[in-house]
C-alpha cells in the first residue's frame, strides 16, 4: 500500500489516540468532561483542542505549509499557557504525536521510514514543536503586557487630569 494512503487511513485512529493522550494530562474528572461534552460553548477547551488537532494532523499529512497550521496551534497553546501546566507540558503534546504515529503504523514503520515519508513527517512535527515554543512565549509575554496595560488604562485619565501628562495637539 502507498505509505501516504496508509497514514490517511489511520488518521482517525491517530487523532483519537492523540486527543485522548492530551486530555489525559488533566485530572480524571476533568478529562472525562472534556471528552464527553460535545457542545463547543459548554466545553470550549475540549472543542478547541479537538478541532485544532484535527486541523494540524490533516495539514501535516497533506504537506500543507506549516505557517498555515499556526492558527490552530495558537488556539490550543493559548489555552494551555494559562492552565496548571509547566511549559513543557503545555507544548509537549506536539511531540507525543511522533510516538503515536509510529505505534499506529506498527509493522509498517520500517517501510515508511525507508520511503523517507516518516522522517519527513517527523521533521515537520519537530518544526511544529519549535513553533509551539514561540507561541507559548508570546502568550506568556501577553499576560505581562496585559498587566502593564491595565495599570496604564486605570491611571492615564487621572494623570492627565492632574496635569502630570499631556498630549501634543494634532498638527
Amino acid at each position, binding site marked *: 500500500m502507498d505509505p501516504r494512503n496508509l497514514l490517511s487511513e489511520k488518521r482517525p485512529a491517530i487523532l483519537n489516540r492523540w486527543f485522548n493522550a492530551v486530555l*489525559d*494530562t488533566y485530572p480524571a*474528572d476533568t478529562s472525562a468532561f472534556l471528552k464527553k461534552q460535545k457542545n463547543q*460553548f459548554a466545553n470550549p477547551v475540549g472543542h478547541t483542542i479537538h478541532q485544532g488537532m484535527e486541523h494540524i494532523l490533516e495539514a501535516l499529512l497533506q504537506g500543507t505549509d506549516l505557517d498555515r497550521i499556526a492558527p490552530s496551534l495558537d488556539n490550543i497553546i493559548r489555552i494551555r499557557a*494559562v*492552565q496548571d501546566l509547566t511549559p513543557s507540558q503545555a507544548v509537549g503534546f506536539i511531540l507525543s504525536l511522533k510516538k503515536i504515529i509510529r505505534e499506529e503504523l506498527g509493522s509498517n514503520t520500517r517501510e515508511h521510514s525507508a520511503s523517507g515519508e516518516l522522517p519527513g513527517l517527523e521533521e515537520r512535527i519537530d518544526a511544529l514543536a519549535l513553533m509551539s515554543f514561540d507561541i507559548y512565549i508570546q502568550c*506568556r509575554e501577553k499576560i505581562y503586557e*496585559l498587566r502593564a496595560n491595565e495599570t496604564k488604562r486605570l*491611571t492615564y485619565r487621572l494623570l492627565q*487630569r492632574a496635569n502630570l501628562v499631556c498630549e501634543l495637539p494634532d498638527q
Partner: protein
Amino acid sequence: MAKFSAKPDELAKIRYAPPETEWMETPVEFREHMFCHAAKPKDLETVEFPNAHEWSSKDEDWKLPANWEQTILQGMKDLLGKYRSFQLFMDICVRCGACADKCHFFIGSGDPKNMPVLRAELLRSVYRGNFTLAGKILRKLAGARELTVSVLKEWWYYFYQCTECRRCSVFCPYGIDTAEITMMGRELTNMIGLQLGWIGGPVANCYMKGNHLGLEPHTIKSSIEFFLDDIESITGIKIEPTFNRKGAEILFVTPSGDLFANPGTYTAMGYLMLFHELGLDYTWSTYASEGGNFGFFTSNEMAKRLNSKIYAEAKRLGVKWVLGGECGHMWRVINQYMDTWNGPADFMEVPKSPITGTVFDNAKSTKMVHIAEFTADLIKHNKLKLDPRRNDHLKVTFHDSCNTSRGMGLLEEPRYVIKSVCSHFYEMPENTIREKTFCCGSGTGLNASENMELRMRGGFPRANAVKYVHERHGVNMLANVCAIDRATLSASMDYWVPGVGVAGVHELVGNALIMKGEKERTQDLRLEPLPGKEGSE
C-alpha cells in the same frame, strides 16, 4: 508560570499524568498569577475588620492570630444560626454534579476544585466534621475533615477563584446558591484578617471617601469636567451638570470606574449627554460617588454599611428617587439585599420618569432604577432622536452581566436600547447569554492585575462565544452594562479575541443621540472619526 527546575537527565522523564490522590489528600499549590495580594492592615482597621495583620499568601507562615481555628468555627456556628440558607446549603447537596461543569473557572482551568460542588465541599467537609453527628463519628467516611492550616489555605485559594456569578445555581435542582457558600467562606477568612488588597482598599476608600479609588470631591468634579470638554469638542454643546445639589428630583449614582478608567469614561460621557438632552433635574453626588459595593465581597455587615451611604445621601439631598448607572453587582445588592438591610426607602417616592410618566413599580421599595430601564422606556416612548448610522462602524454583541441578568432579570432592556442605537447587532449562542451568561471571569474583587492568569482562565468561556460571533459575523464591539466588565473584558479580548473592543451601552447611546443645537458630528465619543467622516477633522 511554574518555576522550571528540571535537570537535563530528568527532562526525558516528564510525567504527564496528574496526581492520583483524592481531593482531600491533594494539598493546594499556590501558582503565580493566580492569586491576589493581601490587604493592608490599615485598610482593614479603617472599617474595624478584626485581626488585621501583615502577611503574604506566598509565605509558609501566614501569621494567623492565636486560636484562629476557634474563631473560624465559632464564626461558622454564628453564620449557620444567622442564615437558614447557609445551613440548608450545607445539608441538602446530594452531589449530583449538575453544577460541576457550569463554572467558567472549571471550564477554563480544568481544575476539579473549581467545580462548584467541590468548591463548596471544601467548606462542607469542615462543617460535617464539626457540626454533624455523622461527621464527628464517621469522619472521612462521612466526608468530614479537620480544620487545619492546609485546609484554610485551600479555602483562601479557591474561594477567591469564584466570582459569585451564580451560573451554577441556575442548573442546581435544589436551588443551592453556591455564591452564598463562597460569600460565607470569604466572610470566614475575613474574621481572621485574611482579605484581598484589591477588595480591602476599595472598601476602606468607599467607607471614608465614598468611592473605591478614594477620589475626593474636587477630583470627581474635575474628572467630569474633563468629559465635558470632550463632549463640547464633539458636539459643540456645553453641558453644566450639578453636584451635591439639594432639592434635585433625581440622584444619579454610577460606579466610580466610569469616572477614571477607559472605556468606562465614554459611558459616563453618554450619561451626561443623555441627561442634558432630556433637561433632567438631577444631581451627581461627590459623597455617594460609588455604585459598586466591594463590601459585598467581605461581609454582609460591611455591604450593608456601604449601601446605606447612597440612601443617607439621597435623604440629605432630599431627592425623589435614585437613578443608577451601568453596574453589575451594584444591582444584585440593590435588587436582592438592599431592602432587607436598609429598606424600604420610604423617605423617597416611587420612581417616575419625568419624561414619559412611566412609574417603575419594580423599584417601589428600593427607589432605585437601572439606567437601561430608564433609557429603554424613553426610546419606547419615542422621546429620543437617534441616528444609529453613527455606530455603523460597529458590529455589536451584548454580554449579559451575571448580576443584572441572574440577579435582577434585566435581559431585554439593554438589548432594546442597543438595537435602537446600532444597526448591526448579533447575539452570542443561546447557552452563553441571558440567565446562562458566562462571567467575565474577574468579578467579586478579582479584577486585580496580579492574578491575570486566573482571569484569563475564567474569561475563556465568555471569550470563546465572542470569538464565534467575531469570526462568523465580524463582531468588533462587546457591549455590556457593568463597570467591571468594561475594565476586565478589555484584557480578556486582548488575549483571546484581538480586534474586539469593549463599550458600555450608554457610550453607544451617546454616539447615536441627536442633540438639540449640536454641530455636525465628525467624531465618536472616543474622539475617533465617525463612519464616512474620516479625514474631515
